[in-house]
């Protein structure tokens, strides 16, 4: 036992690489970004201190507000069907009589591991109004008479970006829900059946309340992930009237297309504030329901 106490400080050596790595590649870049956000800098001449000028510009930047709105609308359009679908499928696949569980789970999960950029390009091709399969399919079954230009309509552009996101994440959420369902002990259901509860009552009064922590987990991860939507959205473009330009797309374009690093830094912290705000709202809302 003596050796164990003596060796305890070795723990610092084992965890040190994480802290060194985080400091160099995580923390210092964040602090440097914060520093840049108080500067005026084009990347060539020396940075000049301008105080809060970038932030006051950000607060008056209607373009930035538009990207917040776009991101939120796309997020809501994708999260609602995504969670409903994930929950329904999880409940069905948790039933004992269903055959081929693994096959269905694997098929639903597959879109999640495909490169998001590839998904974005794929959907932009499928929904292309002249050559895409979607228009061809809808015309051949008689729903459309002539090709419809999806990416000409702000609403449809947003729906398509949301559709890609939904399609990409519902299988992941379903797996999380199934794991949550399987963590509910069998005895709870047996007791309810003995008490004569109907299936609907069991679902509403037992399953859903017991799944709450899992819902919270999914909701918070999807707020953080969904508000940072970038890869697939970039491939689908900014949309008509900039209707599908997301917050991170705006950050990328400001900093790495227009080379306005200092204002881009302020945009990065603006996005951070928005994400933190909605994470806090989500956490708060789920506590209030208790």
């Amino acid at each position: 036992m003596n050796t164990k106490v003596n060796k305890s400080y070795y723990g610092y050596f084992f965890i040190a690489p994480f802290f060194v790595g985080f400091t160099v590649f995580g923390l210092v870049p964040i602090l440097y970004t914060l520093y840049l956000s108080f500067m005026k800098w084009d990347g060539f001449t020396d940075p000049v201190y301008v105080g809060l000028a970038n932030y006051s510009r950000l607060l008056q930047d209607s373009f930035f507000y538009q990207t917040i709105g776009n991101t939120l609308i796309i997020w809501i359009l994708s999260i609602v069907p995504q969670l409903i679908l994930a929950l329904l499928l999880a409940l069905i696949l948790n039933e004992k009589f269903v055959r081929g569980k693994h096959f269905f789970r694997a098929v639903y999960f597959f879109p999640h591991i495909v490169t998001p950029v590839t998904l974005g390009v794929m959907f932009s091709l499928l929904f292309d109004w002249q050559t895409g399969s979607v228009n061809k399919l809808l015309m051949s079954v008689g729903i459309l008479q002539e090709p419809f230009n999806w990416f000409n309509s702000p609403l449809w552009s947003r729906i398509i970006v949301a559709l890609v996101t939904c399609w990409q994440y519902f299988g992941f959420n379903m797996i999380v829900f199934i794991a949550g369902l399987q963590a509910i002990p069998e005895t709870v259901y047996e007791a309810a059946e003995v008490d004569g509860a109907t299936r609907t009552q069991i679902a509403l009064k037992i399953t859903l309340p017991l799944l709450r922590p899992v819902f919270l987990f999914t909701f918070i991860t999807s707020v953080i992930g969904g508000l940072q939507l970038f890869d697939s959205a970039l491939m689908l473009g900014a949309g008509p009237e900039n209707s599908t330009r997301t917050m991170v797309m705006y950050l990328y374009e400001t900093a790495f297309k227009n080379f306005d690093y200092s204002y881009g830094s302020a945009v990065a912290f603006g996005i951070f504030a928005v994400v933190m705000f909605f994470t806090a709202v989500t956490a708060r809302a789920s506590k209030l329901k208790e």
Partner: protein
Amino acid sequence: MQGATKQPIAVVIILYAFLIAVAITCLLPFYSMFITSTHANSDIARRLLLIPGDQFMANYERLIDTVNIWRGFLNTVFITVTATAINLYFAALGGYGFSKYQFRFKGFLFLFVLGTMMIPGQLGIIGFYKLMDAFHMLNTYWPLILPSIYNAFGIFLMKQFADSSVPTEIIESGRIDGSGELAIFHRIVLPLMGPAMATLGIFAFIGKWNDFLNPMIILFDNELQTLPVMIASVKSQFSSDFGAQYVGIVISVVPILIFFSFMSKRIISGVAAGAVKG
């Protein structure tokens, strides 16, 4: 709920119909992509394609004349494998450190590690770019590989595993044999952590394989570029050559499809395990 009772046949049919309909929705875009990639542009524009054509090679030739997509594939393999190996080693190191040593501020430091998971990835991207510029590391693979040293989720997963599956007695006996602490970790602990490393390795691999923003801003040379960035550039370079674009997507999806068909059980149970612990 757990269906000890017999289900009415109509309910069963409706449920299966629903499951199959969703499965078709998942697979149809991929099917359409495969089929379309085998047709000439004139056919792609004219009609709905349901059966394979014979123009795949022609589309493929036009694609690789301009974009060295296999080079991008190999670049991505190199970056992903290296980064995943570093990720696994240092996650195991940190997780083991948090699990088996009692040092001051341990609880606080572990909370700090978990807290770093909440930071959105793009927050420091501009500073990261500028810092890598200062290190003269732009247009190299270092900025894509070295940050794998810190992976909070990996440390969390490895600590959980070491807590439950690496017995402290085995470490004690290593010390009695006179091994150094790092030698104990390398010879005794690391082999025991295999199962957790397999799960973490899959996540790290997929995440790195799909990484897009970092290589896009860090790398300038087309020859160094990764597959996702090449796919993105195919979209802009071949804006009117749809056949070539479809071939590009097929080349991006097929390796993932093969990987997934071998690993799907492991990946899905890993996701489930990660979710329950998180």
